[in-house]
């Protein structure tokens, strides 16, 4: 079997920057194998992807040295359009890749560029839409598809060029669990076809089936090997900002034999060695914290006028002061619509929303902004100032505060998010994780009692996810009510006190976190699954929510 990709001492520095994005990368990918690349934000993963189809150095200019060969062709000497026949690249932001008005034309675009005859294009549209499971959607508008469907369409549109090598840059980051599984099952099919596949991903579960895992840190590839070797070196993973497989971490912490990468393996090992005995789970049922209700939804229905779709149906929800609440559910289940009712961005079609017992309709929007802060998913939707100081002080200036108070509050908010000393930086040049923090700080500066965050960890690497969530935990400890909307089950499990599961505009389940994650059946109805650790915990009957708590519990048994 031949070598599909060969990278020889590749270094690259983007024009107008000084820090190299890639340093002396070496690596080989055999034809028909599956490589997963992992690493922290800014480790050079995307740059590596782009260097395989000549976007680096053709589209992104800079200082380039070393060689990349794909099927024996030197990439740096080829044009991107030529490379497209050999390397298909699926970018992280699938929204930006789709631009046609129908699914079939989206897939036709690549083959048209290859100057294929019409009947061949027709054949490829058929084949690849069926391959990704979108054959029924041929005439649909891409904008009307779900996230997982959009990403699968983006994959089909690249596959239609029939490249022997397929590269996917974080194809599942913005997707809900079901969308993730849809995309990963396409990856499985590709492997069965023996195509060469290189995927960048954060989730260790994706990497379990890989032939090789590459770990990147600061522009270097610091480990290459089979998953069982790379994914069990926890210290190394942590140093790269990658989440270690929780089952491995658990076994190592307990000193149990074996390195199970999946929950199934872990259960098999526990049974084989008799390491612990499953018991029925006694989920702690914490009573409400006894503090006053701060936000309440009563029989709320909401219908989007433009779509005439009912986004919320008969929602009843009480949130008490000082709670830490996670709202989970698939895309389109109504999570964001629900959250936007809590600060009055949306007005219910029927029913009412109360803030400290007052109907929201009676409170001015600008006043609500001081009580309930809302951090949008993408920080770039709100950042506009030249300095971090101005950005964070914006809502205070809007409220007409005096400069001294503004200065104090800004400093305080920046300290909370861990960005003290960043006052004079230009927000646009910060990393995604830092911009996310600026967005949080700019909401915090108004000192709202309630803070709502839409997908606070999406697009961040494990390290940044942790620090973002630790920061929110800090806010919660200071008495703030924190509400997060999230796809990430482990985030909800480790940080929230209470979980609200949504499905098709209704609340399917509303329970203390541990009890919620014990209901695997109900979660499955909403196409969700508990995080691996809690799946194992459900089987073992442990009531802990974090690794440490589980370790302690199992030790004391």
């Amino acid at each position: 079997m031949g070598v599909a990709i060969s990278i020889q001492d590749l270094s690259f520095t983007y024009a107008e920057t000084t820090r190299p994005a890639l340093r002396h990368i070496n690596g080989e990918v055999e034809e028909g194998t599956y490589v997963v690349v992992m690493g922290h934000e800014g480790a050079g993963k995307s740059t590596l992807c782009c260097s395989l189809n000549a976007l680096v150095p053709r589209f992104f200019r800079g200082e380039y040295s070393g060689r990349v060969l794909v099927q024996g062709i030197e990439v740096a000497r080829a044009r991107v359009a030529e490379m497209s026949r050999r390397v298909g690249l699926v970018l992280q932001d699938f929204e930006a890749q789709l631009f046609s008005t129908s699914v079939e034309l989206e897939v036709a675009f690549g083959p048209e560029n290859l100057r294929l005859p019409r009947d061949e294009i027709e054949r490829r549209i058929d084949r690849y839409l069926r391959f990704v499971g979108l054959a029924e959607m041929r005439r649909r508008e891409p904008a009307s598809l779900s996230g997982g469907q959009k990403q699968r369409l983006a994959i089909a549109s690249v596959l239609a060029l029939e490249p022997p090598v397929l590269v996917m840059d974080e194809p599942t980051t913005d997707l809900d669990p079901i969308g993730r599984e849809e995309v990963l099952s396409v990856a499985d099919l590709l492997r069965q076809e023996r195509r060469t596949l290189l995927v960048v991903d954060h989730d260790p579960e994706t990497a379990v089936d890989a032939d090789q895992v590459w770990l990147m840190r600061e522009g270097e590839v610091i480990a290459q090997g089979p998953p069982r070797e790379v994914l069990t070196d926890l210290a190394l993973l942590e140093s790269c900002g990658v989440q270690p497989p929780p089952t491995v971490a658990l076994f190592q912490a307990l000193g149990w034999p074996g390195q199970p990468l999946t929950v199934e393996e872990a259960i098999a090992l526990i049974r084989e060695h008799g390491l612990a005995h499953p018991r029925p789970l006694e989920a702690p049922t914490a009573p409400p914290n006894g503090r006053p209700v701060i936000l309440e939804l009563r029989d709320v229905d909401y219908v989007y006028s433009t779509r005439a779709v009912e986004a919320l149906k008969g929602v009843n929800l009480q949130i008490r002061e000082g709670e830490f609440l996670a709202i989970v559910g698939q895309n389109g289940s109504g999570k964001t619509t629900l959250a936007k009712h809590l600060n009055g961005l949306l007005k219910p079609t029927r029913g009412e929303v109360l803030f400290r017992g007052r109907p929201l309709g009676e409170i001015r929007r600008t006043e609500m902004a001081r009580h309930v802060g809302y951090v949008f998913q993408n920080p770039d939707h709100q950042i506009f100032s030249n300095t971090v100081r101005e950005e964070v002080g914006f809502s205070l200036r809007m409220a007409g505060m005096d400069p001294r108070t503004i200065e104090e509050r800004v400093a305080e908010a920046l300290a909370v998010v861990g960005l003290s000393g960043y006052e004079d930086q230009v927000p646009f040049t910060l990393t995604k994780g830092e911009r996310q923090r600026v967005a949080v700080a700019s909401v915090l500066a108004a000192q709202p009692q309630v803070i709502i965050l839409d997908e606070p960890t999406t697009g961040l690497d494990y390290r940044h996810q942790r620090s973002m969530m630790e920061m929110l935990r800090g806010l919660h400890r200071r008495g703030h009510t924190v509400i997060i909307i999230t796809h990430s089950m482990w985030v909800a499990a480790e940080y929230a006190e209470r979980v609200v599961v949504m499905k098709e505009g209704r609340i399917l389940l509303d329970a203390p976190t541990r009890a919620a994650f014990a209901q695997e059946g109900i979660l499955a109805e909403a196409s969700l699954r508990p995080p691996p650790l809690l799946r194992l915990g459900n089987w073992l009957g442990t009531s802990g929510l974090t690794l440490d708590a589980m370790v302690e519990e199992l030790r004391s048994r």
Partner: protein
Amino acid sequence: MNIFLYLDENTWFHRLDPRTKIIGVLLLFGLIIVFNHPLYMGAIALGLVGLAAAAKALPNFWRMRYILALLVIFSTVLWPFFAKGPTVIWSWGRLEVSRESLMYAVAMGLRLASFVGAGLIFLSVTTNEEFTHGLIRLGLPYPVAFAFSTALRLVPTFAGAGATIVQAQISRGLDVESGNIFQRAGKFIPLGVPLFIYAVRHTNMLAMALESKGFSPGEPRTWYLNPQMRRGDYVALAVLTAIFLAALFLRLQGYGAVLPRL
């Protein structure tokens, strides 16, 4: 958010070749300009509504009902003061309204509404790609046509991002509804800057995606869309041309005009 007007139906109009649709709508525009008598314009407007019904485009007319009504009303109210006719029925100083100018005003209102209506029918039966493809078949260079269609395509995307940005800033206490015009203009910055940056990022990403799929402007390519001029197309064009020429002939004979200018 859907600002596109295309309605995915399968009428005879939808199946026409895009070239026929483009030339056809131009002929309709021509026809609309010919007369300025309200009765003639009324007939044309009615004809367009009939066409819209046949093309199942009436939902779009309904969506645009306020704009259409506004055009007719404003024009009817304002034109009488600007057009001058011989039979004066009311005057105040230099302002005067004549019977002819009033009729002319109604005709102009109908003309504007008909323009919008003809355009609506066209957009209801033509996808973005068909339009682009039609333009290319009519001789427009591909890079120009591609830029044009991409720009059209990005409008709803940016509109969606714009809506999110407005919500994000309102949540931070931006009050977009109060203040005088200068204060309001200042509030544009928190909305405009993120949108601009979003647009630059998005466009850059799109360019990467296009190149990665083998696109290079100016290079020859093939087409999946393959519209053919069929008999129906020729018949449609012939009928429209005949109607247009007949109308032009009538007008030159002095019919269908309340005031001599076009």
